[in-house]
């Protein structure tokens, strides 16, 4: 690249050919384009640099001063632009007089950088800075929720000083401050990185937090009389690099090392935001965001996080069958036999199959296959849309995770008037419900279906349709299954099991080996409590079993294999495979699926 196109570190585009520049970090050369920031460039390449205030989604204030490095530029001849060289032919470097914060350094061609790996000065500076950060930090790690995944704790172990020379009273600041309904502040733990205030200023734009006081007394706070209640408030807990901001709901509930976290998505709405389910002893204790640049970046709305009790509470304890008007617990085989008996007693074309936007693509697909094999019309689903509830960001009007997946399978929203008319005309002889609650949704009243068989896959014992159901089949929820959901934006994403259920399912166990390598709460964990495992099955196990009990040909297949079949038979899923979805999903439109 001709040197004259570079001036003051700015590359002037003389041609359309992308120009590659070079930077030397710790004696190793890297190529780059454009003008990236040094810290992010290093982090992307596994060159770790300690930092606190820097966050890739926020502006760069360079206030923690932890990521200091030595930066130098080769000396160039003013007229020719030639790099001056010493006797050995090496470029002569002019080092900046002060250390620079790598987060704010714009990279330039020929730049030379020394990190703590090659510079004692940098190593010392990082140590000095951590000594400063810790003098007024309470060091109450043993009772702090952040301990175990605390950037301050981790980086102190790696880069900090041996002890402290500080022999004075630490600064006292307010503790246990309720900033809002979901977030609590411990002012003394705060290291003033301003990530939280920058989040509310730049990302959520609620402007609810600011730094108050001055100097060493600084801490984040709302305006007098204001409450930190924005719908995204809990994100500041995730980005807080210390335990200053904690979740009112979660604080002191579990230590980080007692839980396992499984990658998954939230099912509170149709956005498909990526998350991690944190599980201890097969109870979901919290939900935190998982970075996905295409969908939710680093964020998760508070309502998605608040949804975790639904995975623990009101869960059923095995299948039930109505015998003489009473629901009685039975074994799974007996339940399947009863389903086949009920479905065999009616005209197949008169069975109403209700798919579910809560259920996975695979489950809905299998339901469609069952419907076809008994000669029933294609399933329809009950939409759960609250107009106006969405915010155009991570909260959608649609309160289900997979309506788009249903649509792509050819499962469309139900026409309530039509269902009503057919019920009136006695044209519906049985109802088969996949993971939904038609009575509570108002599709029909309990009395409307009192006299016909109702088969129900359900997550909860609070499902109102149970009152008229003849067979109740407990279904696995998103945290217990493997499957695919398609977001409103057309991203197909797969999930992994986060908690174990009763019974043996080889697929689930293998998948859990990937999502929960720590084995907490599994049968291999001697501390686990068997009563926290729900006696349910994924619908992709129930539906083939039902088909087989009706004498139909149906093989057990793993969800991955089912998705392969879907991709081969349905154009709207062409090319979809678990491999292509990976951990961050894939946009179906981009892999050639027809819409």
């Amino acid at each position, binding site marked *: 690249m001709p040197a004259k196109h570079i001036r003051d570190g700015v590359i002037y585009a003389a041609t359309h050919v992308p120009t590659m520049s070079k930077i030397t970090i710790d004696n190793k050369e890297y190529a780059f384009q454009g003008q990236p920031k040094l810290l992010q460039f290093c982090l992307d390449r596994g060159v770790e640099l300690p930092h606190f205030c820097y966050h890739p989604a926020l502006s760069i*204030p360079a206030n*923690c*001063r932890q990521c200091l490095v030595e930066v130098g530029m080769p000396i160039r001849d003013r007229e020719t632009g030639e790099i001056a060289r010493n006797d050995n032919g090496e470029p002569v470097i002019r080092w900046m007089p002060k250390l620079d914060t790598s987060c704010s350094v714009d990279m330039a061609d020929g730049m030379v950088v020394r990190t703590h790996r090659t510079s004692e000065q940098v190593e010392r500076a990082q140590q000095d800075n951590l000594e400063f950060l810790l003098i007024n930090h309470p060091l109450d790690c043993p009772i702090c929720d952040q301990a175990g995944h605390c950037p301050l704790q981790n980086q102190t172990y790696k880069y900090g000083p041996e002890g402290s020379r500080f022999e*004075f009273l630490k600064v006292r600041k307010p503790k246990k401050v309720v900033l809002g309904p979901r977030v609590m502040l411990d002012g003394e733990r705060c290291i*003033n990185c301003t990530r939280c205030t920058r989040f509310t200023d730049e990302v959520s734009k609620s402007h609810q937090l600011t*730094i108050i006081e*001055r*100097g*060493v007394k600084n801490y984040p706070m709302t305006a007098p009389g204001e409450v930190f209640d924005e719908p995204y408030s809990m994100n500041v807990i995730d980005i807080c690099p210390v335990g200053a901001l904690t979740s009112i709901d979660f604080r002191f509930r579990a230590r980080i090392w007692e839980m396992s976290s499984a990658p998954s998505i939230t099912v509170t709405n149709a956005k498909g935001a990526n998350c991690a389910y944190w599980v201890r002893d097969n109870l979901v204790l919290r939900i935190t965001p998982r970075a996905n640049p295409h969908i939710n970046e680093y964020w998760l709305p508070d309502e998605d996080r608040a949804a975790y009790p639904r995975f623990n509470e009101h869960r059923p304890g095995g299948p039930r069958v109505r015998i003489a008007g009473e629901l009685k617990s039975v074994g799974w085989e007996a339940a399947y036999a009863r389903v086949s008996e009920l479905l065999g007693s009616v005209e197949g074309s008169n069975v109403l199959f209700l798919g579910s936007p809560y259920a996975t693509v695979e489950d809905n697909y299998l339901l469609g296959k069952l419907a076809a094999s008994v000669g029933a019309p294609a399933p329809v689903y009950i939409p759960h849309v609250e107009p106006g509830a969405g915010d155009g960001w991570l909260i959608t009007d649609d309160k289900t995770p997979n309506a788009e997946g249903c649509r792509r399978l050819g499962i469309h929203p139900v026409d309530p008037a039509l269902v009503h008319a057919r019920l009136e005309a006695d044209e519906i002889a049985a109802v088969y419900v996949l993971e939904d609650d038609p009575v509570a949704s108002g599709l029909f009243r309990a009395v409307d279906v009192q006299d016909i068989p109702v088969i129900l896959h359900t997550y909860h014992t609070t499902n109102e349709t149970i009152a008229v159901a003849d067979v109740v089949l407990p279904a696995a929820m998103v945290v217990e299954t493997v499957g695919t959901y398609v977001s409103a934006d057309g991203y197909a994403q797969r999930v992994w099991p986060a908690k174990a259920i009763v019974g043996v399912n080889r697929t689930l166990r293998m998948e859990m080996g990937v999502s929960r390598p720590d084995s907490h709460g599994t049968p291999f964990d001697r501390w686990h409590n068997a009563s926290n495992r729900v006696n349910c099955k994924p619908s992709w196990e129930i539906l083939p079993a039902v088909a087989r009990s009706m004498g139909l040909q149906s093989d057990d297949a793993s969800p991955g294999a089912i998705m392969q079949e879907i991709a081969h038979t349905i154009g709207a899923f062409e090319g979809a495979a678990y491999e292509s979805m990976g951990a961050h999903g894939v946009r179906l439109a981009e892999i050639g699926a027809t819409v």
Partner: protein
Amino acid sequence: MKMPSPSRNGSTKAGDWRSYERVLLPPVRDLHRFDVYVKHGGYKALRAVLTHNRKWAPGKVTEAVKASGLRGRGGAGFPTGLKWSFMPPIDPGTPRYIACNGDESEPGTFKDRQLMEYNPHLIFEGILIAARAMQIDATYLYIRGEYADWIRHMEHELAKLYMEGYVGKRILGTDFSSDIIIHKGAGAYICGEETSLLESVEGKRAYPRIKPPFPAQKGLWGRPTTVNNVETLACTPLIVNRGAEWFAGIGPEKHPGPVLYGMSGHVERPGVYEYPTGMLITDLIEEVAGGVRGGKKLKAIVPGGASVPVLRADMIDGVTMDTESLREAGSMMGTAGMLVMDEDTDMVKFLRRVTRFYHHESCGQCTPCREGTGWIENLVTRIDEGEGTLRDLDILLDLCDQMEGRTVCALADAAAWPVRNTIQRFREEFEAKCRQSIYAMA
């Protein structure tokens, strides 16, 4: 005014300062009033700049300021004309600003207040000339909140200027328009830092910004902005009226012009004195300020506000008040607010008070300054209370290293310098206190 004649003894760079005629604070009664100021030739320079389009084209004003050798009077001493020339070319539709810094809060500095009280129109005229030179749309005159009386006073005079057509739309009937807005500070020292001042004017928490970008590139609301001290801009009407050569001829060549010396501490006549730059420190103390109070011996001086390094009495022989000479002596010109300390001064107590100030005023943005200033105050207080150890002195010097040059703005440096220099230059006093302490053996 006659040119300064060679000095009587020929040794001082300030020339014949005894016959110096004051130009920033001329002895005119009620000069703060608009009519009096105009009667004494006020706004002549502005009129010249606005009407003599050939002689005083905007670029030529900047050239004249460059030629005059004027250096900023706010503490850093940056050449003013050069700073003005950093403003990018005019881009129609992009407003340009001046932020005039009247937030003087450095301990020992009180010269801007004198100008605001006695010659406010010189400030306004200077602002307008600078505004013309750089094609400025609006000037924010930032005055520290504690100067409530002077703010009221300045606002009163500014209102008159608007009424008389000297500020605002079509100034003096020409096609030049420029506004002046007085912005009141809320009592934070950090707002005197130029980028912090910009944040404060924008209504934000006054955390200093990272540089680059510099204010000339991205200043107020991201627009080109020049930040100048009040006294600096007050010099520009003088340069226009009397010429750059006249200005350059006052005081030493590399740091010329009239300057307001704020004399405080243990002197007989503390106050603000206008003299040329390059005054002998001994002259300022002995002759101008009437000598050390009570005929005592001099112990130390701080030549330019609390943050510049302290000088022992034996270090000031022949040292003059200009950048070069003070650098050689191991200090800085700063704001020319000189603190004088007599032989009875306890230097540990002096440092204790200074460190308390920086602890109180650190904005808290950067870790080293936020944490270091408090720790330093703790250590110095402990030594002063008779509970310190010799090791504390080493820690103090270490902390200076850990703070200096590692923060966004220069407050950490300003907090570290007095600590380092006071300990180094008066180490025996600190050691004596440590030895008398209850932990002397530690």
